[in-house]
C-alpha cells in the first residue's frame, strides 16, 4: 500500500469489471485508472455503453451478477475499498461516497414521503433520533432550493416534478456530508431549464460542502460547465485525460476530437453536423489493437497493435499511436512494437 498524497481522495488503479454472460465475457471496464482530488470535479465522458456507469458502480461495489470486479484497486484515501468487508462498505456508501442517479422519476421509493427517505439516509449513518433526522431532512430540502420544505417533506415522490425529485435525490445524497458525490447523468432526464438549475445547485453545494464530484455524462456541455478535469472513455478504457480546458481546446485523441466535432454550435453555418462514423464495437467481439481504429479517420496499420498511453503534455495523457504533436509515428522510433499495452501504473505516473 502506498501512502496517499495530500488532498488525494479517490484513486482508481487498473480497475477491471467484467460481465460473464452466456455469449461470452464483456470487459465493461478494462483497466481504468484515474484519480480525484479533494474538491475537484472530474467529468467522465463517453458514448452509451463505454463503461462510465459501470465504473461508478464498481467504485461503490454495487456490481451484481453476472458482473464482477476482477482486478485493480479503488483507493479511498489510500485504502483499497475492494478489501473492505460488506459492513465497512455499507458505511462508506452514503457516508463518504454518495451517488445520485439518472432517473429521478424512479430512484425514489414510491411508498415513502420525500422527508422519510432523506431522514432514513441520515439515520443510517448518524446516531440521531427520528425527530432530529426529520429536522435534518427539512433543512436539506431547504438547502437544495425546495420552497416550503416542511410541507414538501410530507409529500410523496409522485406529487413532485422531475426537477424537484432530482433535488430530493441530491438532498438525500448530501444529507450525510459525503466527501465524494458520484453523479450518474444527473441532468439527462430533465428538460433544459431545469438542467441548468440543477447544475447551478450542484456547483453551489460543491463550494459550500467542499466535496469532490465525479460527474458521469455524455453531454459535453455539462462537462464544460462543471468539470475541472475530464476523462474520456471508450470501450471500457480511458482514451484521454486532461484538464477541461485542454480537452476542449487541444484534444489529442481522435476519439475526443470526434466527440467535440459532433456538438452542434449556434451561429456556425454547416451543411451537416459531423458525426463519428460507425457504431460502438460489439463488446463481445472487440477489435484487436486500438478499439477505435475502425471508426478513426487517422487509422494506420500500426493501430492493429494496442496503442500506448502517452503523455502529450504535463497532466495530459492519451491512448493513441499519434505522437504528442499529433503526427503519425515513425516506425522503429516512436512505435517500437514491444511498446504495446502500457501498464496502468505508468499511466498514473504520467498524469502527475
Amino acid at each position, binding site marked *: 500500500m502506498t501512502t496517499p498524497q495530500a488532498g488525494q481522495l479517490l484513486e482508481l488503479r487498473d480497475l477491471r469489471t467484467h460481465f460473464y454472460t452466456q455469449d461470452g465475457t464483456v470487459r465493461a471496464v478494462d483497466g481504468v485508472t484515474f484519480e480525484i482530488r479533494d474538491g475537484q470535479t472530474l467529468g467522465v465522458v463517453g458514448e452509451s455503453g463505454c463503461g462510465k456507469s459501470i465504473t461508478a458502480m464498481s467504485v*461503490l461495489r*454495487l456490481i*451484481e*451478477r453476472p458482473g464482477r470486479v476482477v482486478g485493480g484497486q479503488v483507493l479511498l484515501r489510500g485504502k483499497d475499498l475492494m478489501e473492505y468487508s460488506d459492513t465497512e462498505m*455499507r*458505511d*462508506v*456508501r*452514503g*457516508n463518504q461516497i*454518495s*451517488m445520485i*442517479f439518472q*432517473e429521478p422519476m*424512479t*430512484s*425514489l*421509493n*414510491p*411508498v*415513502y*414521503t420525500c422527508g422519510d427517505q432523506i431522514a*432514513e*439516509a441520515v439515520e*443510517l*449513518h448518524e446516531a440521531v433520533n427520528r425527530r432530529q433526522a426529520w429536522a435534518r431532512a427539512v433543512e436539506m430540502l*431547504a*438547502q*437544495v*432550493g425546495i*420552497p*416550503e420544505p416542511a*410541507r414538501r417533506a*410530507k*409529500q*410523496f415522490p*409522485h*406529487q*413532485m*416534478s*422531475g*426537477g*424537484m425529485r432530482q433535488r430530493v*435525490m441530491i438532498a*438525500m*445524497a448530501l444529507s450525510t456530508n459525503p466527501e465524494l458525490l458520484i453523479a450518474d447523468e444527473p441532468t439527462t432526464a430533465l428538460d433544459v*431549464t*431545469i438542467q*441548468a*438549475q440543477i447544475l*447551478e*445547485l*450542484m*456547483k*453551489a*453545494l460543491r463550494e*459550500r460542502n467542499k466535496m469532490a464530484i465525479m460527474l458521469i455524462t455524455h453531454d459535453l456541455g455539462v462537462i464544460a460547465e462543471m468539470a475541472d478535469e475530464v476523462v474520456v472513455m471508450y470501450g471500457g478504457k480511458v482514451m484521454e485525460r486532461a484538464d477541461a480546458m485542454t480537452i476542449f481546446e487541444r484534444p489529442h485523441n481522435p476519439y475526443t476530437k470526434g466527440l467535440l466535432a459532433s456538438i452542434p454550435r449556434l451561429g456556425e453555418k454547416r451543411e451537416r453536423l459531423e458525426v463519428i462514423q460507425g457504431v460502438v464495437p460489439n463488446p463481445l467481439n472487440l477489435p484487436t489493437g486500438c478499439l477505435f481504429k475502425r471508426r478513426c479517420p487517422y487509422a494506420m496499420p500500426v493501430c492493429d497493435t494496442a496503442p500506448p498511453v502517452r503523455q502529450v503534455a504535463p497532466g495530459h495523457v492519451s491512448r493513441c499511436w499519434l505522437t504528442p504533436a499529433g503526427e503519425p509515428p515513425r516506425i522503429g522510433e516512436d512505435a517500437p512494437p514491444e511498446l504495446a499495452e502500457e501498464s496502468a501504473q505508468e499511466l498514473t505516473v504520467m498524469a502527475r
Partner: protein
Amino acid sequence: MDRTEPVDRPIGTTTVAGGRDAEDEVDLIPIRTYWQLARQRFIQHRLAVIALFTLLVLVSIAIVVPTFTGLEYRLTDLTERNAGPTLTAPLGHDELGVNLFVRLAKATQTSLIIGGAAVMIIVGIGTFVGSIAGYAGGWVDNLLMRLVDIVLSLPVLFIILMIVSFFGGGDVRVIIIAIGITGWTLAARLIRAEFLALRGADFVQAAKALGAGHRRIITRHILPSAMAPLVVAAALGVADSVVTEAALSFLGFGISATEASLGTMLNKFSIYFYSAPERILYPSLVLVLIVLSASFLGDGIRDALDPRQRIASK
C-alpha cells in the same frame, strides 16, 4: 400559504426563471397523509366496503351471540325438537332441540378463528420464503422454489388428514397448523415475483448506494411495495383455510362432532337435504359470505394501499 409569495431562497436556485421550477406551479393539490389517501381510495371501492360491512356483521354475531347472550350452543332441549323459529331462536331448532342460530354463530366463530390463525402462518411462511428467494435469486431462489414445487405436488387434503389424525383430531390448534404449513406456497410465489421485479428497481439501487443493508432493503424498501400481492395472498388464504376446515369437518376429521363448525353442521344436517334444506343452507350461506367478503376486502385493501392509484374524481 400563498404560492406566489417569494420564499426565502437558499443557494443555487437564483439562476433561471426566478429560481422556481415552473412546472411545479401545477402542483396545488392539498397534502393528505398516506392513510387519508388510502381510506379515500378504499371507500371508493364499493364492493370492498360491502364486504367489510358483511364481515363485521359476521364477526360481531360470532362474538356476541355465543358469549354474551347466555344462550348455549350445545344445550339440547327435547321439548323444542325441530321447533320452528322463535325470537331467541330465529333459525329454529334441530332434532335434538339445539338452538340453530346460536350453533351457527359458534360455528362461524370457530371457522373465522381457524381461518384467521391459519392465514397468519400462511402469510408468515410465504413472506419469509418468497422474499428471500426473490431477493437473493440464483441458487437460493432455485432451492426454495423447488421446495415450493414439492409442497405443491403433495395432495394437500391427504397431508392435512395425516397430520390431523397423527397429532390428535379435534384439536383446533392442530388443524390450524396443518392448514398453515400446507397452504403457504401461493403466498410465497406471489411475494417472490414481486421481489424479483423490485430487486433491480432504481430506488432499491439508490437505497444500496446510500448504504442500506440487505435486511433493511427487504423489510423497508421492497416489502411495502409488495403489500398488494401480500394482501391478495392473505385474502385468498383466509378463504382457502375456511373452506379447507369446513371440508375437513365435513369429512369428520376436523374438530370433534360435538363442537360447532360450519363443516360439522353441514355433515350433520346433510341427511335433511330433502326434509329441511334450510339447515344446510344457513352454514353454506355463511361459508360463501366469508369467502366472498374476504376476497373482495382483499381487493379493496390492495387498491387502497397502492399510493400510485389515483383517486377517482367525482
